[in-house]
């Protein structure tokens, strides 16, 4: 089996995996980064969102072989103590219900706000459209993105 060197949260991890293994399962099963969630496996729900070189990506669609040499950030590495403005906004608004989708929501929102720290409502809705929340905490997610934007800008 081939080996890959992955740079995750500023540390290099060496893993053995089949070329076509989605990064999601390497993160979860092999490296114990279980904050990244599995929801659909086909890029439709956003639960598995991570940052690749700062951009939000679906780890279920990215093969481990494609991820070598890239800067991978998972929810565990978004901040040191959960003090990223998006995480803090999520806490202030008390967004989570079951909480399962929230790591993905936070990763999408944080990448989005980095590029657009002052979004309007339509931009927020478009940016968050790919992340399903089955508990339908959408009102709170939307509000938390606004709160985070205020903290960032």
């Amino acid at each position: 089996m081939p080996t890959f060197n992955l740079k995750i949260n500023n540390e290099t991890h060496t893993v053995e995996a089949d070329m076509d293994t989605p990064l999601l399962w390497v993160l979860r099963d092999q490296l114990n980064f279980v904050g990244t969630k599995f929801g659909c496996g086909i890029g439709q729900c956003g639960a598995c969102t991570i940052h690749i070189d700062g951009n939000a990506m679906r780890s279920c669609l990215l093969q481990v072989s494609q991820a070598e040499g890239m800067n991978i950030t998972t929810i565990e590495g978004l901040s040191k103590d959960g003090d990223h403005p998006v995480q803090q906004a999520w806490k202030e608004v008390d967004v989570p219900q079951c909480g399962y989708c929230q790591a993905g929501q936070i990763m999408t929102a944080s990448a989005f706000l980095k590029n657009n720290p002052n979004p309007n409502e339509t931009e927020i809705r478009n940016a968050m459209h790919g992340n399903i929340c089955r508990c339908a905490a959408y009102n709170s997610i939307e509000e938390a993105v606004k709160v985070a934007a205020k903290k960032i800008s």
Partner: protein
Amino acid sequence: MTPSKKIAFSRRSFLKTSALAGGGILIGFNVLNACNPKAEMPIDISKLNFNDFNAFIKISDEGKITIFSPNPEIGQGVKTSMPMIIAEELDVAWKDVYVVQAPLDTKNYTRQVAGGSQSIRKGWEALRQTGATAKQLLVNAAAAKWGVDASECNVKEGIITNAKGDKLGYGDVVKEAALLEIPENVSLKDTKDFTIIGEQIGNVDIDKIITGKPLFGLDYKEEGMLYASVLRPPAFGQVLESFDDSGAKSVSGVSQVLKFGNKIAVLANSTWAAMKGKKALKANWKQESQAESTAFHDTKLLEILNGKTFDTRRKDGDVKEAFAKADKVLERIYESPFLPHNCMEPMNFFANVKDEKIHLVGPIQTPAGTAKRVARHLKREENEVFLEMTRMGGGFGRRLYGDFVLEAAEISSLSKKPVKVVFSREDDMTAGTYRPAIKYKIAASIKDGKLTGYHLKEAAVNNNMYGLIPNFFPAGAVENYQVDTTNYKSNITTGAWRAPYTNFLASAEQSFFDELAELMGVDRIKLHMDLLEQVKTNPNPKVEYSPDRLQNVIKLAVEKSNWGKSEKGVYQGFSVYYCHNTHVAEVADITMENGIPSVKKVTCIVDCGIVVNPLGATNQVKGGVIDGIGHTMYSDFSFNNGVPESNNFNSYQLIRMGQTPKVDVHFVESDIDPTGLGEPTLPPIGAAVANAIYKATGKRLTKQPYMSNLNVDKKVMG
């Protein structure tokens, strides 16, 4: 205001104490059943015994309060509101309370959970009693120390004072308290003195959730554990005939393929390898019972709905006669599809079946019943099964059913390995216990401008509405009233889905009332208010709802939504419903965008008694409303020859942020005991939306999901 209550409640039977070896007092309690009189209280915090107790409160020498609960969260905020109630009566500051989910115990197996998370409604009184009893115990200890009468002592935020002005913290008296008799007949607080209940308190797991800590079943791991992916019959009614596993076995990482019943499990060292192995299986299936399609269900349900064989569930007066004498009759049929639950966290469970013990870990809403089923299934003793619960990535009813736990246990038993069964989304959506397809026929008779008869018929797949539903509104409000049910037994597995039965029944009835008011030429709101007035003047002992509380939520909905005064281009629809002991009225504001309705705002008035945690409660109310809009407008699920026609989010629409309205929530101020919140705001919303769409388009929607029946593009929005 409710006065302080003294309830005859033998606290000895549900509460026990012990002095902890490391200092402090430990209080164990059992809220729903009496404790086993022989139950031993541990003196070591690492030996908490959740077989005999629901939870433990530890009060340390420093007066810090820790609540240990084995019950994880399903998304209803119970893990936060339960300790709030205890802390309130214990009279401590919320900031001094720590809630700890007792950690998974993989070595001692001390956690044989006896019950699932209990609703606030059931636990309310007992949780208050627990807090109040613990407080009295501490006060008694302080009084004894001072040599004064306990009635002379006061408590505020964990500090006990006496008439002389002496002060003792809870921590100062824990040693003495642990030796005292447990007091009987303690007083509960007056609701107006609450300082924690009614405050906005955040989710106790928030830090773990936002930093991605392992909390959920899917995150659980053990040394040497294998992942299992299961191939199940692709169509309902099929059985396994033969299979070829050579392809699966050649997938790297796959260690074993085994058949059990009509299923085949692929075991591997990673989830991905197991899933890949499953895809490489070749299996032949035989259709053993009927291969049913949606068109077949439609025909069948209509046939029995229009037939003659029914169970009469309630009968007041004589509907036949009322209809015979009527000036006008309105009759409509309402139809709903099957629905999968689609919990965000797909079904999964860990099992390690060994000769000595069976260890099960994962997300399940019915731990006790499931543990029993596993014991029976594997022909083992119940006391050999140890089941531990993790946080759940959604439930919605799906996790009441332990099918996936039985699978994990059977695979572990056959392979003699620790195994975690993981459903893919496709597995989750196609091996469901679906909300059954249901059709209602509702008829009403009008005589001299009055509603004289109401006849509801239900034709459902597999099972009918539960016993209390026939006593919901309009029972008691119409002289001649009848509810009949009939069903068709299908081989498609069905079960409870958020707000079972009412999730569609409310849509049907509240759409019907909109049309009925129009036919009668009366105002929609007035019709309801008048009918409820009649219930008040002719009280009927067999109604579940409170006419006063329903009238009150209606009035508030009219006021808060600006009912009837919306701006041009905004269409409003109204709906009101009682279920799960909670009264709810809703108004949906919609606009039409290129012929497609868009819900902009929902005003939601909720009377659920005392709101324990407004922050969590608001979240749940909004979630229920938006979930309801999603499923009544967009989500469609059909079968073709027994095969589900959608299996992932590219072919099945779950509501997304762009489709959601702002939900404006108002709770009725109340000092009545709290009732359910996870479900009751969902049922009424479908009708509020349908009634608004009628105003905008002139089209009465009777079939869900509405978007599939509005002649608009049916594409799934990804």
